[in-house]
């Protein structure tokens, strides 16, 4: 009621000063596209978790084999099939790392393993240290991941880029070639390589080189096809830019988001492919072992020695899930329209 009693007189008002210079002022620091994308990525907890897990696994796979006294293929039948034992963590029962197997027998005591010998992930039927073998196997999976990404980036981007940029006849011929390659299942390619070259890392590498980049080349082609008719490219062309400048300054930076997203999804695919081949015995050959081969060996004695399968399988799953989560996060961060 006090409000209504009070009269508002014109002399209570005065014009606000308008500073035309200030209205255009930017109060926040401007973010480039990449800073903005990174900010969005950082907000995505699942993706960051995936990123940390990947970094952790990479570092560990490099460092971990040196932490163990045992090499990849140091056999000693006297210490075969030992369950995991980690000094210091033995007292914590539920971790199951006290050297006691699933029947409750302390295998280390039974087999008279010297007190200074501990196997953090146990040993396999030939007495080889699983810790070393698993982390070396992880290295192979990561090598495949790195390889797949590199092939994607080099062959896929260049092929798709050239095909779209030059268009016309070049595009026609290059796309017919891709269609033929696309029709050949990569399983068939790898099997042909295995037949000529023997199974191993080389045949897997070659098979990936031949088939791995097709998805990427198609995506880059589609992106560049739609970009090259846009006004900003025309403007740049009118100003006399060379083809090289058009590609490196305008087309590629605008495709980079799609490229990164695609390669984060190619990577888990390639890791799976290698593990799958090793699992059916067409991949990495003994004495080297990859995660897929270790899981396959472990499943043979899953009922008696579950530790042989469980550790490599968990690392495999964590790696795959992390790459998928990071891929999802990157896609949301780099291309909010494409959210799936």
């Amino acid at each position, binding site marked *: 009621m006090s409000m209504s009693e009070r009269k508002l007189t014109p002399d209570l008002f005065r014009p606000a000063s308008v500073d035309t210079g200030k209205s255009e002022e930017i109060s926040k620091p401007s973010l480039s596209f990449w800073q903005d994308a990174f900010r969005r990525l950082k907000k995505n907890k699942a993706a960051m978790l995936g990123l940390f897990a990947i970094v952790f696994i990479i570092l560990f796979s490099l460092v971990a084999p040196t932490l163990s006294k045992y090499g990849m293929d140091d056999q000693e039948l006297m210490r075969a099939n030992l369950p995991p034992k980690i000094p210091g963590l033995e007292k914590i029962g539920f971790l199951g790392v006290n050297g006691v197997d699933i029947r409750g027998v302390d295998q280390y005591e039974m087999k008279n393993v010297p007190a200074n010998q501990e196997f953090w992930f146990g040993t396999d039927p030939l007495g080889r240290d699983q810790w070393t073998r698993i982390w070396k196997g992880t290295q192979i999976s990561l090598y495949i991941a790195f390889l797949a990404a590199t092939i994607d980036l080099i062959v896929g981007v260049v092929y798709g880029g050239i095909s779209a940029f030059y268009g016309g006849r070049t595009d026609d011929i290059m796309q017919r070639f891709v269609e033929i390659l696309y*029709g050949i299942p990569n399983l068939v390619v790898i099997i*042909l390589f295995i*037949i000529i070259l023997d199974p191993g890392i080389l045949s897997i590498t070659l098979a990936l080189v031949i088939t791995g980049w097709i998805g990427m080349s198609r995506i880059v082609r589609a992106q560049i096809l739609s970009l090259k008719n846009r006004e900003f490219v025309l403007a740049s062309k009118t100003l006399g830019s060379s083809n090289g400048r058009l590609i490196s300054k305008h087309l590629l930076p605008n495709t980079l988001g799609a490229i990164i997203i695609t390669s984060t999804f190619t990577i888990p695919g390639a890791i799976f492919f290698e593990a*799958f081949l090793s699992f059916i015995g067409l991949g990495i050959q003994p004495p080297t072992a990859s995660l897929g081969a270790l899981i396959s060996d472990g*499943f043979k004695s899953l009922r008696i020695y579950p530790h042989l399968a469980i550790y490599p*399988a968990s690392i495999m799953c964590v790696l*795959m899930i992390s790459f998928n989560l990071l891929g999802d996060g990157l896609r949301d961060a780099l291309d909010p329209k494409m959210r799936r």
Partner: protein
Amino acid sequence: MLRYIAKRVFSMFLTLLIIATITFFLMKLLPGSPFNNQEKLTESQRFALNEKYGLNDPVPVQYINYLGKLAQGDLGYTFQYDGRTVNSMISNGIGPSATIGAEAILFGTLIGLILGIAAALKHNSVIDYGAMVVAVFGIAIPSFVFAGLLQYYVGVKLGWLPVAFWNGPEYHILPAFSLSVGVIATVARFMRTEMLEILGTDYILMARSKGISKNAVILKHCVRNSMIPIITILGPLSIGLITGTLVIENIFAIPGLGEQFVKSINLNDYPVIMGTTLFYSFLLITIILVVDILYGIIDPRIRVAGGKS
């Protein structure tokens, strides 16, 4: 449309011809002959065997003969058993493989659709998050790990279902389910996104404002329109399933095509390797072609020829 189909079928046969040529010459380059394992053969016996299988002819003649037979659908004889054709081996193996494949894709699509629809309708709820966690795990966890775990827990520990082999309907459940996990995950994710997008469109609002009940709108408008993109992913999914059957058949000891294929590689049984390779390629290319054509028929908005990449 007809022209497009004709063009695609032509390029399909071209691809097959290239694959056949490559496999044929690779096999010829290989060291060793399939009879070397049987060490007790005399020179004349070996010659007679080579003569029987046409291996004494010059390579170009063998190639022409091979293509001629191929055109009639004859894939030749296996070296493993006397007098058995590759065709009969493939037709023996395809039964179990196709059965689990079909079961996996039907079951997987159905469950995936339900999960995806539920997640979209209850957007940002527990159901949504739950479904998406299932989807991420389903995509990320390799089918062989999943199959091994199922075999161990359901088959061995609980003893509910048979661990392996192929003797009746209950033997289908574990392999088909482990194969379908990837399908469930992929379909669920796609369906959720599509549904969310369509739920936000104007024609859904329009349908609701005309007084059509919520259920009818969801079933007749949302779900039907969201299903269209699902068809495109069925192609890549079936390819994944074919790769998957190789492992799953190995784990569950199912006498299918995949198991035979792996075996023939280890035995240097060229005709079976070539035949199965061609058969797989034929299958894959046909699936991709059918999916592309279906897509054009179902969704007239998309012209296949210039369609999405």
